[in-house]
């Protein structure tokens, strides 16, 4: 399983803060994102946001990053702390 987390405005758009996804056939963040986008119109729209950032196992990555079973993947909008 891959644990997927959503934060901030993305979390609100999806009405969901986390899902578990079977790791089968998901080799990269981009593939995971495409797969999640099929869960419904809200998911398709929210995950199409060009500005979305991703972290794999709590490290910022790009969308081509490889993922595998047991990973924690987080999607979120650009950060605004500080």
């Amino acid at each position, binding site marked *: 399983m891959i644990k997927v987390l959503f934060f*901030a405005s993305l979390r609100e758009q999806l009405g969901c803060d986390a899902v578990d996804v079977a790791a089968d056939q998901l080799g990269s963040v981009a593939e995971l994102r495409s797969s999640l986008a099929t869960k419904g119109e809200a998911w398709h729209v929210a995950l199409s946001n060009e*500005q979305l950032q991703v972290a794999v196992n709590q*490290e910022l990555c790009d969308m081509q990053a490889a993922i595998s079973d047991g990973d924690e993947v*987080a999607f979120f909008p650009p*950060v*605004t*702390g*500080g």
Partner: protein
Amino acid sequence: MAVDISISVQAEGFDPGAEYNRLRSDNYSDGATAMFVGNVRDFYVADSEEGAAQKKSVSVLELEHYPGMAESALAGIAREAAERWPLGRIRVIHRFGPLAAGDEIVFVGTTSAHRQASLDACAFIMDFLKSRAPFWKKEVGVGDDGKTQSSWVEARSSDESALKKW
């Protein structure tokens, strides 16, 4: 000598004066201490019903964070600073949860034997924290109709471009 790095991600407030005292405690080798504190401004959000002319004071800032990654991102930024400058101590605090106008949000403190190193490292940590640490701000206010209104703060491209100078 290893740099002494201390990171806190917390809901509780903090006291910059006490943080200064801790940075200085038994620290006779570093003559320079640079600090930055970020506070909640008394800003305004547009009332979505009435347009920009009907701005309302923001009563609360909600800070969301990614537990675990927030700490490790801040620690990574601090370690990067420790590699670039001859620092003695680095202290970073970032709060999450609901905050009111005037409240402290973030503290960055650095000590060094060299004034420029302490100031540059402090600015560097703030610049990277702004664009790389997983925190998100939401402004919450109350409109004329008494209803709560909220909006996520938009990231600014100036924060991303601030990284280029390092």
